């Protein structure tokens, strides 16, 4: 007994001493840093931080003086503040990351399944894809997509315009326009009553969900097929459609076209529709293909980690190949897939910063410009760190939620 208590005390002392030492080291380093920074007043400091007190962010309220492009909803003009410019950069990063996540997931899923195809050609093609793409730096792939491929598409003066004709009927002129200024596609434009229509739509959606709940309950209670999906969707569509007609088209589709300005109309720009700039697209395609090669490995690994009996049993039940994949294999594989997938998504979000290489104005780009005009690299670096941490936290909380949902509901 005595020896035991002795041991316990010893180990408690040990812990206390080690951890105390750790705290001391942290305090020492922290104080050292603070001292170092506050001592920097004269020669170098101002480019680095305002001195003293350092870590003040007032300079971010000043006029930015520059314009940032590549924005989807808003561009920044020179009268906006520096903070606006950084936020615009952050918005561009978020936009890029969300498109990338969608694109890379779909590509990755297809390639991952393809790598397990029983068909020799598909299997080998997908293997080749993964072996080549994931072994080449992402930056190099961005260069290839931008310099070699995207910049060699025609200039806007020779833009490729794709029309949709249907038996001689010119249905949609300029459906898609491609030039190295970007990819212009049709998009929706809201009119006066859009708000009202959206409100009605939202109410209808809530109603439809409630209806589906009710029908499901009834199906459980009474039995029989109550068409739990069909009726709510039909009702939702019907209400939206009627509202759309009654409200005199709250939104309409719009195809892009090219407008001319400048001397002799020599400057051509897109108008209408949605314009995806070449830089944005090059990054999406390059990073999307690149990350898909990693995601496909996750998909493949998750499928292979399932017990072989699952597929066997499904086969014995007489399910078709497609049914086996979508009903048995993928839903189960999803469970093991989600945690590593979340990591990939976070990595991909951070990887979008490579976009500065081809001048895409993401958050890193914006902060670099501001810090070059205003100094304060410490404050700006801190801001950048916080923005990325928030994004990473957001993604991981979404993925955790998804994980929780999948594990709980057992789909």
């Amino acid at each position, binding site marked *: 007994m005595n020896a035991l208590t002795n041991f316990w005390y010893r180990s408690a002392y040990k812990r206390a001493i080690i951890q105390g030492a750790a705290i001391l080291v942290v305090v020492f380093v922290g104080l050292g840093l603070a001292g170092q920074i506050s001592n920097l007043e004269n020669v170098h*400091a*101002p480019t680095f931080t305002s001195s003293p007190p350092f870590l003040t962010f007032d300079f971010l309220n000043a006029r930015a003086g520059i*314009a940032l492009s590549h924005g989807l909803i808003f*561009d920044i003009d020179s009268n906006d503040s520096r903070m606006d410019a950084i936020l615009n950069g952050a918005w561009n990063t978020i936009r890029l990351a969300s498109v990338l996540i969608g694109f890379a997931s779909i590509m990755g899923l297809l390639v991952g399944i393809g790598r397990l195809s029983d068909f020799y050609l598909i299997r080998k093609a997908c293997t080749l894809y993964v072996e080549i793409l994931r072994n080449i730096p992402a930056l190099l792939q961005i260069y290839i997509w931008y310099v070699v491929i995207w910049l060699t598409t025609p200039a806007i003066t020779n833009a490729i315009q794709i029309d949709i004709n249907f038996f001689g009927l010119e249905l949609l002129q300029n459906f898609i326009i491609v030039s190295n200024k970007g990819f212009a596609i049709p998009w929706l434009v809201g009119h006066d009553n859009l708000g009202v229509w959206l409100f009605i739509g939202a109410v209808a959606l809530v109603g439809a969900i409630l209806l589906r709940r009710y029908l499901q309950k009834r199906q459980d209670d009474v039995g029989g097929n109550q068409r739990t999906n069909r009726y709510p969707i039909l009702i939702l569509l019907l209400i939206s459609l009627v509202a759309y007609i009654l409200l005199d088209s709250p939104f309409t589709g719009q195809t892009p076209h090219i407008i001319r300005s400048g*001397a002799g109309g020599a*400057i051509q720009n897109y108008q209408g529709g949605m314009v995806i700039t070449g830089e944005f697209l090059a990054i999406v395609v390059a990073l999307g293909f690149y990350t898909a090669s990693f995601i496909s490995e996750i998909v493949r690994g998750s499928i292979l980690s399932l017990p072989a009996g699952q597929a066997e049993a499904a086969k014995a039940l007489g399910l078709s190949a497609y049914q086996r994949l979508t009903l048995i294999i993928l839903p189960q594989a999803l469970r093991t897939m989600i945690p590593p997938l979340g990591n990939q998504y976070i990595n991909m979000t951070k990887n979008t910063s490579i976009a500065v290489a081809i001048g895409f104005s993401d958050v890193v780009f914006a902060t670099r410009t501001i810090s070059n005009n205003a*100094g304060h690299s410490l404050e700006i670096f801190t801001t950048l760190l916080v923005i990325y941490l928030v994004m990473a936290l957001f993604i991981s909380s979404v993925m955790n939620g998804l994980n929780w949902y999948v594990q709980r509901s057992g789909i």
Partner: protein
Amino acid sequence: MSMSWLRRGFLLSMLALASVALIACSSDDGDTTSGSNADSAASGESTLEKVKDRGILKCGISGSLPGFSQLEADGSYTGFDADYCRAVAAAVFGDSSKVEFVETTGANRFETLASGEVDVLIRNTTWTLSRDSDLKQSFAAPTFYDGQGMMVKADSPFQTLEDMDGATVCVNQGTTTELNLASQFLERGLTYTALTFETTDLLQEAFVAGRCDGWTTDKSGLASRRGVYPDGPDALRILAVTMSKEPLGPLTRHGDDEWFDIVAWVTFGTFQAEELGVTSGNVDAQIANPDSVAVALMLGVGYDGGDVTDMGLAVGPQFLQAVLKQVGNYGEIYERNITPLGLERAGSLNALWTNGGLIYSPPIR
């Protein structure tokens, strides 16, 4: 068995690493591997001492701007800015080859200077108020008076900025031209899209492809890049409009007046030498037998058997001798680097003040 060997090997390698660290850190005096071990950022050790301790001047340049600073195939740098780096090295060491060139971009040059990575930044940088006050840099003297221009393809119809409403303009990140572009278009009520690149190389790729309608930077920079344009210089045209004043010159960090004075007076010295007609060709003769008192004062020699006047610059009274012998005066530097770009000096702001330009040195006395 191999485990114990691994351990011993590990220890050995750690010892070796430690010795490397010692070598790297202790060999400051003779070689060029690392800076001095004094804490200059905090204690403010003079830049001159630091440079002398290191035995080499670190000079920030662009590296991809023919005529100003350009990496040659043999690994050396040529150009106007590179020559001014050499001039400062010649003043400090008496040897213009003791320069280590550090390539910087428009977007990282000030941080490079501020962090002490380079001692002086000579990278066709525009002198502005905010760079003096916000960024705490000290501009020595403008060595090249420039203005922002706009370059377009020769076959386009643009003559003025007003012709370019709605244009996409390629511009370098972190430059004054990026800011001027915004204000010029704003004032004229024109819309534009800026396509911003950190490196000029990629900007050119985009411009060649017709991704942008215009390319803006200092006119000298435009002329320089026009000279190496893939489709030949005639494929491009520089508009007459001058969008801003761009006085370009060397700069140092705020707060080290001694070092600032050296850089400033090396620059002024090259102006003064041209004014007095001292060139790399006749400097030896002038040292032996100066033409005038002004020349004697400039070169730090006695006039007519008199004594040397030391005006107390930290690099000694004769600092301009090596500069002029090894690099030359302003006219020579200009002739060697800028004239081939097709930028005529006569009649421009870069002529000597005696010829109606702005190149003017305060008296060296």
